[in-house]
């Protein structure tokens, strides 16, 4: 019988010829004209960044995959209106953050209560110089944070957002965002001791 892990690996995470950033403006113009091949190249360029964001914000592999797909579908819909007033990557990441937040607000699906989990193998697919076990411990501890604290921590301490930006996106006061960050850091320090 085909093994579960074999099936998981079958679709592959193969990355095709990633375009260089220098290609990006040209790819964006072509994708705005509904060129699916150009859009796929933009996807290949940015998917790992968007997926990392979704995975850390949701702590749920299945939701992260779905929301990554939703984000890129939304990009396809909105790309004709992208005027280049900000970097494409920044625009895309903010769109992805909004999609995750919207999903968490409005689609609290019942299966999340039983399927939400920290999927360490998913985090293991990131190649980084930090000692692997330290990084995985930290990823696991972040995934175990309460959702609001986790989101503020991910956006502030990993993504580098300011409290005011986070507060605006979450619809909370800046002071509340700071409180969430404080609690998140306390939780993490305790968990990593």
């Amino acid at each position, binding site marked *: 019988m085909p093994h579960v892990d074999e099936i998981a690996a079958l*679709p592959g995470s193969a990355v095709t010829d990633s375009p260089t950033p220098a290609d990006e403006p040209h790819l964006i113009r072509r994708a705005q004209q509904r060129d699916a091949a150009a859009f796929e190249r933009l996807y290949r360029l940015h998917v790992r960044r968007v997926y990392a964001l979704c995975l850390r914000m949701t702590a749920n592999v299945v939701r992260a995959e779905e929301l990554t797909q939703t984000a890129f579908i939304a990009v396809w819909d909105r790309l004709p209106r992208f005027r280049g007033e900000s970097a494409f990557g920044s625009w895309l990441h903010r769109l992805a953050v909004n999609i995750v937040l919207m999903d968490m607000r409005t689609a609290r699906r*019942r299966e999340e*209560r039983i399927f939400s989990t920290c999927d360490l*193998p998913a985090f293991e697919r990131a190649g*980084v110089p930090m000692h692997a076990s330290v990084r995985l411990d930290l990823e696991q501890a972040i995934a175990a944070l309460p959702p609001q604290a986790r989101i503020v921590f991910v956006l502030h301490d990993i993504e580098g957002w300011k409290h005011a930006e986070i507060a605006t996106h979450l619809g909370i006061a800046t002071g509340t965002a700071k409180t969430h960050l404080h609690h998140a850091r306390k939780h993490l320090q305790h968990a990593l001791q």
Partner: protein
Amino acid sequence: MNCTEAHASLDDSVDGTLSPVESLALDAHLARCPRCREALASLRALRDAAASLPHEITPGRDLWPEIVAATAARPAPSRRLTLPLALAAAAVVVLVAIGAWSWQHRATRQPGWTVAPLAGTPHVGATPISGDARLRPGDWLETDDASRARLDVGAIGEVRLEANSRVRFVGTAANQHRLELARGTLHALIWSPPRLFFVDTPAATAIDLGCAYTLAVDAEGHGIVRVTAGYVALENGPRTVVVPAGMMCAARRGTGPGTPFAADASPALRAALDRFDFHPAERTAALDEILRESRREDSVTLWHLLSQVPAGRRGDVFDQLAALHPPPEEVTREGILRADAVMLTRWAGELGLIAASDAPYRGP
């Protein structure tokens, strides 16, 4: 500044948002308080570790096929047009559509579905295909170890066939589109209403309930499904099992579908479940192992077992499931022990098994 005030300033300190005056006050306190210095160092270490986490993680599967399918099915974003311009545009669209339909109809007037190679040279029957081809009812599509293929399931979805796979186009009608997977692996993405797309395998029939899934069949005809979106029903004779997103389910030739399990279930639980489902003589020991190994994420598996274990063991399953995922208030131990259908269904709803209105739950 005392220790309480210092601790309240540490976050702003590592973030660099303290005012000069506050910073001086904190420095003065830190100079004489080793505990607060240690707390600040710990906070800085955490911030540095978080900042050095990778900003890119590769998904465990290729997410592109569903994206391209969804975007291809979407209309172009609408633009605000004045009425005369909109009418003129509509006329152009109609003319273009007629032209495109005529052209396409000429190209595809023969019955069947379009198949295209994704890699290597798949075969339709004995014919190698290098570009778009037609798969007609009764035709076999086969891939070797170097080839893969894409199959457009009419207007309702897409199937991707992995290497070393063999699938037959059984037939298509208004209310049914059917394939037979003899061996290998396919990925299905279906956007039609539920219960229109079927894949027969030697062990069970997979019925789409509005979903994306991967289905694999080995050389002995045993199968396994992994659902990534929506629901799939696995059916064999009178037994139907609904598998929700994030879960998998094995099926054995001659036995049918087993019990669904979470895609991240432990190997020990999977092995025990395989013994429980497909080796009747080992059921008692296997159930003990399942109960020991189960986590909250395995609640759906335990719920299915409630109606599969002998009545004498139902209490054990209830106790473990209730500990991991307490039942709704109106669901009682006594009710579950007598297999009360209403209570079982109520609990299933709490576990997300009746989440989709178009995928009515049909019990184990």
